[in-house]
């Protein structure tokens, strides 16, 4: 594994791994209007990072556990008639604030807070790489395995129920996958920008897709492209890598959406 000794190679592989998991899952986040849900889960994970550092356990495990708790809390509350956008706004930002406060209590260990907020893809080690790809494979495996059921439940829960699919199980599966993606993506894009890796590629793929499968596939390719493009650009411009990747994804979104709008206008005119 000589090639893994190069930090740029590890960074590229880490970016690809996150793109592979986040883009197709992000399609479901978009279709089900869970964008804010993704945000809340991601922001909460900084609290997990702080706790993990405080108790000396792995950051990945800490972030995963807190993301899971957050996702479970939101799922439980969502069926009970609360105004969801308000509730998610409260949870997302207070979790972030508690996380930041908790980090400030950590003495002795000097923590590069920026690294967790915006990611530090160039510092990805071999273990991180294994964790990222392990998580990505689990998420993609889950999506492929449950694809038809997930899609039916996303379209209409009653439609799924009538065919013997329990939409709550499918929702739970997506929630777990979301927590996992958050946990593995912290190192690459940081807690503030994970939601962008979920949503921006999916949104950019939408105008080019006629079926859900095509959209997931295109989103994955675009996300991988953004990750691969972001690395050299951030290297050349000396900019933070995570935000640069998201910027490139945003440019792709503007291109595809703009092209689709022009296509529609010329079809009318």
């Amino acid at each position, binding site marked *: 594994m000589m090639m893994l000794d190069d930090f740029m190679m590890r960074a590229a592989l880490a970016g690809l791994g996150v793109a592979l998991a986040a883009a197709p899952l992000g399609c479901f986040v978009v279709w089900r209007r869970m964008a804010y849900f993704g945000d809340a889960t991601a922001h909460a994970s900084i609290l997990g990072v702080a706790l993990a550092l405080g108790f000396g356990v792995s950051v990945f495990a800490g972030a995963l556990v807190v993301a899971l708790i957050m996702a479970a809390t939101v799922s439980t509350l969502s069926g009970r008639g609360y105004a969801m956008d308000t509730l998610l706004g409260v949870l997302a930002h207070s979790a972030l604030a508690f996380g930041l406060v908790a980090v400030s209590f950590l003495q002795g260990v000097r923590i590069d807070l920026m690294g967790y907020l915006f990611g530090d893809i160039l510092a990805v080690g071999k273990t991180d790489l294994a964790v990222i790809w392990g998580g990505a494979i689990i998420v993609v495996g889950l999506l492929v395995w449950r694809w*038809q059921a997930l*899609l*039916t439940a996303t*379209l*209409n829960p009653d439609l799924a129920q009538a*065919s013997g699919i329990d939409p709550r199980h499918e929702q739970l599966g997506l929630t777990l996958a979301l927590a996992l993606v958050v946990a593995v993506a912290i190192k690459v894009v940081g807690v503030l920008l994970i939601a962008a890796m979920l949503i921006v590629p999916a949104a950019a793929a939408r105008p080019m897709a*006629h*079926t*859900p499968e*095509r959209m997931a596939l295109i989103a994955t390719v675009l996300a991988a492209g953004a990750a691969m493009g972001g690395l050299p650009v951030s290297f050349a411009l000396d900019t933070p890598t995570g935000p640069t990747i998201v910027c490139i994804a945003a440019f792709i979104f503007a291109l595809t959406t703009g092209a689709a709008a022009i296509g529609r206008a010329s079809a009318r005119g």
Partner: protein
Amino acid sequence: MSLIRTEGLGVQIGGTRILEHVDFAIERGEIVTIVGPNGSGKSTLLRAIIGAVKPTEGRVGRAPGLKIGYVPQKLHIDPTLPMTVGRFLNLPQRHPRAAIRSALERAGLPDLAGRQMTNLSGGQFQRVLLARALMNTPDLLILDEATQGLDQPGSAAFYQRIEEVRQSMGCAVLMVSHDLHVVMSASDRVICLNRHICCEGQPEHVAQAEEYRALFGSGTHGALALYRHTHDHAHDDGEGCTHSHDHDRDHEAAQ
């Protein structure tokens, strides 16, 4: 054995009683229609039957291996979700291409497999929903106000199609409907629901029942008579229109 049998079914949602003491059964090949004012628990009964709502009392029994085809009241497809007609028919199970093609032909939409669902007209959309529900040759077809938003000829054609489906596939049909006179013609049995089953039986019987008239007024009786009239002569003297509009208003008032 009945396809579905509920015993003492009761449903409470958020402290409100939606259904109570519902004993209901549907047999193979039967067409049963549920009528009732808005808020009478029609949709909740259907949702309890498909398992989307848990009963708080009583139980819902299904025949072993029962296959249900479900046509929801409304299906909102999020604009972010690309979905062609052909892809939609492959949910939740995939089917061979030939099966999709023949399903679309039967639905009278042979060229639409590649069309986006969101670009269909109301009538086409409804026919695609029905075609999807029939893909796995269900034992029981459940329709929740499937003709909402269709005009009179559109919904008449839709119910005719249901009758053909019953003839050709032999499946039972359970539907909720507001088109009272169509209901009366198309059903073997009508159930009048208002939180509990007020009355049930053959359409003629139910239309005469006190409980039914108390809910729908005597205008409904006229609608039934009108239906029979038009059935013989196939013309519409306009009276049916005023009647059915009155029912709609009754329903709004009951809400």
